[in-house]
């Protein structure tokens, strides 16, 4: 018979695993999207900048997926989780699987995400689990730079030419519906917040909004209205974008299992 405290520990380990997957998948999918820019960005310097941000996100993802695999205890590792899971097993935010389209669209997506990650990591530093606290403290410095980059470009293009302004507003309008999920807690978020593992997402919404509105103002962009329909990537509900992304990302490991560089 299992004692009460053993059940509790097992439950908390499962919450940690699910929370690590949620954050790790989100960083991984966005990193893959940013990697698609390599060789295609409008300038060599932006090519490097986007790749650098992607690499930071890969670092976060490796840390989190390794932890998730360790907590799972089934002998899988970070690579198994990244390359051998199906779309329906990914818990990333819907926002990050959105295709790049053009540079401006990528910047809007990045800015909305960076603003959220900043708020999250500032609070996750105080997680009761030192593994999450450590990750957040390290990643916060990276995220500060990502936000500096995406904010700079958002303002530059939003408050740029007539065409750049129109296109940035168009991207913002198109992506806005996917931002509700950033601060809307999933069951995993709720459970993680309840045991002190993660911040209560409701506390993020106000500061995320304030940060975003400040920059949108500067960029002369209009804040779109919130919509009633919500997307649920964190609850494993994805569209076709994620399937295509994973097909490209996973094909080597799927075709040649265990292959190495």
């Amino acid at each position, binding site marked *: 018979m299992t004692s009460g405290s053993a059940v509790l520990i097992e439950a908390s380990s499962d919450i940690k695993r699910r929370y690590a997957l949620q954050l790790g998948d989100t960083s991984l999918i966005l990193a893959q999207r940013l990697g698609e820019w390599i060789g295609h960005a409008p*300038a*060599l310097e932006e090519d490097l900048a986007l790749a650098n941000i992607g690499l930071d996100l890969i670092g976060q993802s490796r840390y989190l997926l390794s932890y998730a695999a360790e907590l799972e205890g089934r002998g899988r590792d970070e690579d198994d989780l990244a390359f051998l899971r199906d779309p329906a097993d990914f818990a990333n935010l819907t926002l990050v699987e959105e295709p790049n389209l053009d540079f401006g669209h990528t910047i809007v997506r990045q800015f909305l995400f960076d603003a959220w990650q900043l708020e999250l990591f500032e609070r996750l530093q105080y997680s009761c689990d030192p593994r999450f606290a450590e990750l957040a403290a390290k990643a916060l410095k990276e995220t500060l730079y990502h936000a500096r980059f995406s904010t700079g470009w958002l303002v530059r293009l939003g408050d740029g030419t007539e065409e750049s302004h129109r296109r940035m507003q168009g991207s913002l309008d198109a992506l806005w519906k996917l931002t509700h999920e950033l601060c809307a807690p999933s069951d995993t978020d709720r459970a993680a917040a309840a045991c002190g593992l993660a911040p209560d997402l409701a506390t993020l919404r106000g500061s995320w909004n304030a940060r975003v509105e400040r920059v949108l103002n500067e960029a002369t962009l209009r804040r779109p209205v919130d919509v009633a329909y919500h997307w649920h990537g964190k609850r494993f509900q994805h569209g076709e974008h994620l399937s295509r992304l994973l097909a490209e990302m996973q094909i080597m490991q799927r075709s040649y299992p265990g292959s190495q560089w």
Partner: protein
Amino acid sequence: MTAHSQWPLYEVFIRARSGLEHKHVGSIHAADDRMAIEHARDTYTRRQEGVSIWVVRSSQITASDPAEAGALFEPAKDKVYRHPTFYEIPDEVKNL
């Protein structure tokens, strides 16, 4: 890369460690000073090459004219006594 060719060129100087001087490492294109720092950071400090960055518009640099190299540099050639090789350097002095 049309946008790129319209951006002005900047020269980049990186200080590798505190106490060392900034060294010229290359150049980048950027629309303004702020972007120049970011591009220099992303291009030249990815492998921990630096702790400080200077950027300057290449157009702001005044360079010597190669045609005047003779007048500028030749006269120093036969003045070996200007090299500090005629002094005994004490062993204790390390960084001369």
